[in-house]
């Protein structure tokens, strides 16, 4: 099948996609790397000069960087724990016989299709508003004071919103994996007297490990760059309370016009993402061989 002619056509046909992707990623990335070594501010054009690693020194020693790195890790870590644990529980739930299961599954995965800006504003106003929000009313039913979510617990609020959005993703993937679990194996274990808990830990969970890895890696890639939810609700504040690395780079570039500093920040974000990406690509690459 793979004659020389067909190999050539194959190359010609796959070339356009590879070339445009290269132009889209590699060229701008190269420019970002170059900018990151320059003093380059859009407010003082024509003053660009090579300053070596000074931008990195400024960025990496900036207290804002540590704050945003901590926020990023906290956001990613919390959302991962919530969505993976929640995803396993909901996946197990939806794997059982339930009245109207198909419709129920649609309701559970719906949040994933909500655009981030809608998600953020609905949660911020309709649900979490300290005066007229649903949560404030529920708290008042129990005689509790209303929580001013975005003032007192801004990062927690963001974590809740983002978790709600990504929970369906975990559910969908883990449910798909659960449905491929061999029923015979479970039945055999049951015959041998294994209870539901030991079946979960010795059969179900090992079977899910691969799917869980995929969920963790893919979510991490996306969660490292959460932007819109922060942009429309807190604008990174109060102070730096909800500024993650992505948002910090955005403020430096498009609000302070510090191209050099923002580029250094962008490269730091790329390196962080790559640490995760290496594992993910290896895992998918292995899968491709089978």
């Amino acid at each position: 099948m793979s004659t020389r002619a067909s190999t050539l056509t194959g190359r010609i046909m796959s070339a356009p996609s590879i070339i445009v992707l290269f132009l889209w990623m590699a060229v701008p990335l190269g420019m970002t790397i170059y900018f990151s070594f320059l003093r380059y501010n859009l407010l003082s054009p024509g003053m660009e000069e090579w300053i070596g690693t000074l931008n990195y020194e400024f960025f990496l020693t900036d207290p804002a960087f540590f704050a945003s790195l901590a926020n990023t890790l906290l956001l990613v870590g919390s959302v991962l724990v919530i969505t993976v644990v929640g995803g396993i529980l909901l996946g197990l739930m939806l794997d059982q016989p339930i009245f109207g299961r198909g419709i129920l599954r649609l309701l559970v995965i719906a949040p994933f299709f909500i655009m981030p800006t809608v998600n953020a504003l609905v949660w911020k106003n309709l649900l979490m508003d300290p005066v007229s929000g649903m949560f404030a009313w529920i708290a008042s039913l129990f005689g509790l004071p209303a929580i001013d979510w975005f003032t007192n617990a801004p990062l927690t609020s963001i974590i809740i919103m983002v978790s709600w959005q990504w929970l369906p993703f975990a559910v969908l993937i883990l449910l798909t994996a659960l449905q491929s679990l061999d029923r015979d194996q479970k039945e055999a274990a049951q015959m041998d007297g294994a209870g539901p808990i030991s079946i979960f830990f010795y059969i179900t969970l090992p079977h899910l490990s691969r799917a869980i890895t995929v969920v963790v890696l893919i979510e991490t890639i996306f969660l490292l760059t959460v932007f819109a939810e922060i942009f429309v609700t807190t604008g990174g504040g109060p102070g730096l309370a909800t500024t993650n690395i992505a948002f910090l780079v955005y403020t430096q570039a498009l609000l302070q016009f510090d191209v050099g500093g923002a580029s250094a920040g962008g490269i730091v974000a790329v390196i962080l993402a790559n640490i995760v990406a290496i594992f993910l690509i290896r895992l998918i690459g292995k899968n491709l061989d089978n």
Partner: protein
Amino acid sequence: MEKKQTPLGYVSFSVFAWIVGLLIFFPIFWMVLTSFKSELEAVSIPPSFISFDWTLENYAEVQERSNYFKFAMNSVILAVGSTLVGLVFAVTCAWAMAFNPTKRTKDALLWMLSTKMMPPVGVLVPIYLMFRDWGLLDTRFGLIMVLFLMNLPIMVWMLYTYFKEIPTDILEAARMDGATLPKEIIFVLLPMAVPGIASTMLLNVILAWNEAFWTLNLTTSDAAPLTAFIASYSSPEGLFWAKLSAASTLAVAPILVIGWFSQKQLVRGLTFGAVK
């Protein structure tokens, strides 16, 4: 787990599961409900669930005040446009990789994937500057290109996994019968690949429609889609909850419908075939 369930167990577990499901769905339900309230009732405490004057006023006003239709149109053009451009590139590329693989095909696929792992902030600055210098800021053309390139790796991957499932014998038979390459693609491959192509397109439309990093950073008004339109409601002076809800409901409704139809393909597209 697989035990024979008693009817009582079935009913009580179903009730429990539905309560959990409805709680997860509640924010969406509440948004839709609020969109039918007056502004006064939208912020009233205790909130009213059914006993309010149902009104369609918000939907009319969202259009009147802020020209909702323009933003919706932009969303449609960006989502469909980027999908169609992407399809031309992705079908040829995935076809070549699936049926004429070389030693480097796997590397090429993984490299494409790796571009998807790049955080957008890593290239925000140069892309923004290029867009500014080339007059592409706030243009539909510029944004279609960005969305197309952003989703191209996913499209190639999805189509590749679908094409891999097509038996090569059929293609060879067509070739034996003297079909030329274009004919082979149009008359043999495409009809078999239609379901895969359709779900790839749906997923791409969903992703492009909801994309909210580049659309927020590269548009201001002319090319702004619904993501940016909704974001404009975040300013404190614009706090009209009922209208926000109406605009939001309109913005998410079409994607919710498409998403519900393509939930199975979603797993394939977003995990790059790693979970089956």
